């Protein structure tokens, strides 16, 4: 069992969660902070195993909530639900196509915050919600969707760099060697 993709995606989740909290990003300009964990979940769901998807949801969700004012653990389920859905139907998706990744990222980056908000409201918390939330979700979905294909490429490149190269079999077979000329 190769654990490198799992470790790599967890490391990326850690860096992404921290970068979102460290760098103000678009918030100063347009009042929106983009969340890239759903985009990372799309990459994981399309390219890794179910256990990795579950680990990413737990680890990424806990990491995000540790840096946020969210109740600790509230982001786990929305991330996993989206990841599981993609994982279950990934056979029907052209997962190597950048456009497919963009659309999946767009949907995931819109749905995960929406589910988190619904969970928060259901649990009795009072987050900042209003008409501006629609604008925020739209920007998050669009930017997250646009960054999903590069994230997936980066993840693939990281896996290739850190894993052993697959042994490719030569097409040469000595028993079928055609010898020409006279002996």
């Amino acid at each position, binding site marked *: 069992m190769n654990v490198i993709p799992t470790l790599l995606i967890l490391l990326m989740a850690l860096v992404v969660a921290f970068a979102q909290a*460290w760098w103000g990003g678009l918030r100063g300009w347009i*009042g929106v902070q983009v969340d890239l964990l759903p985009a990372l979940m799309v990459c994981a769901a399309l390219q890794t195993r179910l256990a990795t998807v579950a680990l990413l949801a737990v680890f990424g969700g806990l990491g995000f909530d540790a840096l*946020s*004012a969210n109740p600790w653990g509230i982001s786990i389920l929305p991330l996993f639900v989206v990841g599981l859905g993609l994982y279950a139907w990934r056979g029907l998706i052209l997962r190597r196509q950048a456009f497919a990744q963009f659309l999946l990222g767009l949907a995931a980056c819109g749905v995960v915050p929406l589910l988190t908000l619904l969970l928060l409201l259901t649990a009795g918390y009072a987050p900042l919600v209003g008409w*501006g939330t629609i604008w925020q979700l739209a920007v998050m979905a669009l930017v997250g969707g646009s960054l999903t294909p590069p994230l997936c490429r980066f993840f693939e490149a990281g896996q290739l760099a850190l894993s052993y190269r697959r042994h490719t079999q030569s097409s040469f077979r000595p028993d079928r060697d055609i010898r020409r000329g006279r002996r």
Partner: protein
Amino acid sequence: MLKRPHYVALIIVTLIALVVLNLPGGAVARLRFAFNGFFLPLFGFAATSQNLAGQAGDLLVPRRELIRENQQLRRDNQQLQLVATQAVEIARENARLRQFLGWREQAPWKGRLKLGQVILREPANWWRTVQIDLGSRDGLRTNLPVLTVEGLVGRVSAVSFDRAQVVLLGDPNCRVAALVENATRDNGVLGPSGPVPGDVAVLSYLPPGAVVKPGQKVVTSGLGGIFPKGIPIGQVLDSQSVEFGLYVEARVKLAANLNGLEEIWVLMP
């Protein structure tokens, strides 16, 4: 189509989420603190890169510019010293008058302010918080007011050993008793306005007859016991009567730039 392993994974993850969400408050705080340990290398990396960027920036500033800035700061310093001399005289007069009237003296801020730096901002769009580099080792505790030279920023909401979370004005968990500096000095409660824009809050529960005009200043009223009286909050943008004239509500543009916070002052007890 979902298969059996998918359901098993869903049940396990749901159980983990439910267990974490239902942990007692103390345990959550400790575990959160422990989990933050994963981010320590990234904190170090971020601080180093910031230092390097700062040093590179310093090298790029021409000497002439530094000399000009130095002269400007000297002039500002002299002006502020004059103002401070006048303020000392006014404070003495104030103290004498308070003594005559038997009013209790307000605790001076001098020596009670602790400078901190913002190290992290809220990654979620539905809260307004920041994390600062002061913690319980610096004597911080919850509900201490946090301000900048422009005005009030918020209050300390959670404290760990070397870090603290500050809940900013406009967050649903930060409500401030405030008053408008008009003729009747009307009192209200400053609360959240909405997700965007981030520099506006709503002053609610002003009396029905309150005359609140754009440009009037809003300061803390001192009611509630957390924020001392007279800290600037912002200026009134507009006002309207709500709930069929039951009370007046005003939008307030906050004095402090909450999106660009870098250094803050914590008012210690």
